[in-house]
C-alpha cells in the first residue's frame, strides 16, 4: 500500500469562545430546546448546557462555517482537485444551512467533499482508518477535523474550539505509520509506538494542537515517532506518525477573532 503523508498542517482556534447558559435563552428558542434535548439524552441537568455564541457581526460564524473556512484558507489550496473530508460530529449552530457547502463556497474549493460524523472525540485519529482505503492510491486529500461544539456541558467538557486542517499527500513531512483504537483503560501502546513522543487529550483536536506546538518549538526531531491519542469514555483512539521529512512541513496557526 502506498503511504499517506501529511505535508501541511493549519489550525484555526477560537481565541475567546463565548458561551451562554442555555437557560438564559427564551423558553421557545430552538437552541435552548436542542440544549435541553442533549441534556436529557445524556442524563444531566439542562442547566449544565451552554450554547456557543457566534462572533458578533460574523455571518459565517452565525452559520457555523467560520472556523473550518479559516483553517482551510490557512492551509491553502491543493495543486490539483482532491476530496475534502470534514470530520465533525454533533449538532451545528444553525441546522437551516449547509456549513460544509458554505465552507467550500467561501474558499473556492473545486474538488469533492463529504462529512464524516459519529466519531466524536475519536475523529482526529479514527478517520485515518477510513482514509487508509478511501483515498485513491495516486491521490492526496484534505482533512479538516473540527472540535468546535455548538453545545457544551460546561462541567464535563473542555473543547478546544478549534479546527485542524491537514493536507495529505503520497510523500511528505509526517508519514502515517498506523492508527487504531483500544479500550480506554488499556495501558499497552502499540509496539511500534514504544519510543514515540505522546500527545494526548480528550477531544478530537487536543493532540493535534499539542503536536503543532511541539513542532513549532522544535521538540519533535527528524526521524522521530509521535503518537497522537484521543482518550474518550468508551474508546481510546491513536495515530502513529513518523517525522520523515520535517523540513517539508508547512504549518500555520490562525485565530478566529472577535
Amino acid at each position, binding site marked *: *500500500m502506498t503511504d499517506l503523508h501529511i505535508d501541511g498542517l493549519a489550525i484555526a482556534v477560537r481565541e475567546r469562545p463565548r458561551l451562554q447558559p442555555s437557560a438564559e435563552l427564551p423558553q421557545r428558542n*430552538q437552541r435552548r430546546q*436542542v440544549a435541553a*434535548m*442533549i441534556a436529557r*439524552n*445524556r442524563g444531566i441537568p439542562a442547566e449544565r448546557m451552554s450554547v456557543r455564541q457566534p462572533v458578533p457581526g460574523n455571518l459565517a460564524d452565525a*452559520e457555523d462555517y467560520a472556523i473550518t473556512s479559516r483553517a482551510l484558507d490557512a492551509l491553502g489550496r491543493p495543486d490539483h482537485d482532491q*476530496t475534502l473530508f*470534514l470530520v*465533525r*460530529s*454533533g*449538532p*451545528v449552530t*444553525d*441546522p*437551516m*444551512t*449547509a*456549513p*460544509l*457547502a*458554505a465552507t*467550500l*463556497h467561501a474558499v473556492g*474549493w473545486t474538488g*469533492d*467533499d*463529504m*462529512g*464524516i*460524523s*459519529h*466519531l466524536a472525540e475519536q475523529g482526529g485519529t479514527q478517520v485515518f*482508518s*477510513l482514509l*487508509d*482505503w*478511501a483515498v*485513491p*492510491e495516486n491521490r492526496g486529500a484534505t482533512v479538516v477535523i473540527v472540535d468546535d461544539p455548538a453545545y457544551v456541558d460546561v462541567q464535563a467538557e473542555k473543547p478546544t474550539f478549534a479546527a485542524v486542517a491537514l493536507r495529505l499527500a503520497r510523500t511528505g513531512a509526517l508519514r502515517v505509520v498506523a492508527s487504531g483504537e483500544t479500550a480506554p483503560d488499556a495501558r499497552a501502546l502499540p509496539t511500534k509506538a514504544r519510543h514515540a513522543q505522546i500527545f494526548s487529550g480528550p477531544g478530537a483536536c487536543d493532540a493535534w494542537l499539542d503536536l503543532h506546538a511541539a513542532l513549532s518549538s522544535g521538540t519533535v526531531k527528524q526521524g522521530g515517532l509521535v503518537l497522537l491519542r484521543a482518550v474518550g*469514555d*468508551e474508546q481510546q483512539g491513536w495515530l502513529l506518525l513518523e517525522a520523515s521529512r520535517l523540513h517539508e512541513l508547512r504549518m500555520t496557526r490562525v485565530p478566529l477573532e472577535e
Partner: protein
Amino acid sequence: MGASPDTQRGAMGLSQVSVRFPRGNESVDRVLERAGYSVFERRVFAKFHGLRDTPTLAPDERMEDLLVGAGREALAGRGADVVLYAHSQVVQEFAIRPGFARRLLAGLGVPRAEFYGISHINCVSMLRAVEVARRYHARPGARQGDRVLVLGGDQGSYDDSARIIPGVTVAGDGAAAVVVHPSRGHESPRYRYLSGGAIRDDRFHRVLRMTQEELTRYAKACLGHVATVLHEAVGRAGLRVTDLDWIMPDLTSATFWRDFCSAAGVERDRVCLNLLPIRGHNFGIDAMSALRHADLTGRLRHGDRCALIAVGAGAYVQVVVVEVMDEQP
C-alpha cells in the same frame, strides 16, 4: 469520489435493498397546519406536489430500531467489514445518547466493523455512501468476501421546522440499507453497479435561509444539474438516458419531476413516483426505497437499467446507475 470516474477495480454489486418505515403516519396537511400554513399553501402540497402522508414514529417506536431492522435484513446474517451510516440531519436526538455507534453495531450483529457517519452533504448521503463503499472494495488487498453495509435514514418528525422545506416538501422518518460487495465474490448481487455521477453547486449553501429569489434560482439550477449528472452518469456506462428503463427519484415532490421530464425529454411513466403520496420524502433514502418498491411490486425485469437520483440541499446531486440481475433463490 463524488463524481465517480469509473476507474475502480472489479465489478461491484448491490444486494436487495431493505427498507423500514414506522407504523405511525401523519398527514402532510396536519403537519403543515400545525406549522401555521394557510389552506391555500397546504392545497399546493397536496394537489401539485402530490404529498399526502408522511411516515412518523409512533410513541413506542424508535429510529434506532428502524436502522437496525433495515440493516439486519440487508446483511442477511452474513456480516459486514464496514458500516457507513448516511444521514442528512445534524441534530439527531436518537444519536445523541452516548454510545450510538457501538449500540448500532451491536444491534446489527457486527460489533467489530468499522463505522463512519457520512454526512454534511444532506440527502445525497446514501448514494454517496455507495461510492465510498466502492472505494473500500477498490483498495489494495481487497478480498472477494468483503462487504460494506450502507445504511441511511433520518427522523424528520423530531422537529417540524426540520422536516418542512417551505414550498417544496415535508420529510418523514424511515431507514434503508443495502450491502455493497464485489460482483464476483461469494454472493450474487441483485443489482450490478454500472456507473455514477455527482455535482455540487455551493452557491445555494444557505438552504432554508435563502431568499425567495435564491430559492427560485435554486429550483431551476437543480433541474439542470439533475439532467447534467444523469447524462454524465449514463454516459460513463456507455448508455444514453433513453436506454434507462426506470428512474428511482428523490421523492420531494411531483412538481419537480414533472418539470424535469418536460425539460429533459424523459417519459413521465419511467419515473417511479408511486410512493410519493404515501411515503413522500424521507431524506436520503428515497431512491433506494423506490427501487425496493419497484422490485417488490414486480416492475423490475432482468437487465432493466435504473438510475437512482438524489438531490441534497447545499446543493448536491448524486446519481447511481444499476442493472437488475436475476433474483437469487
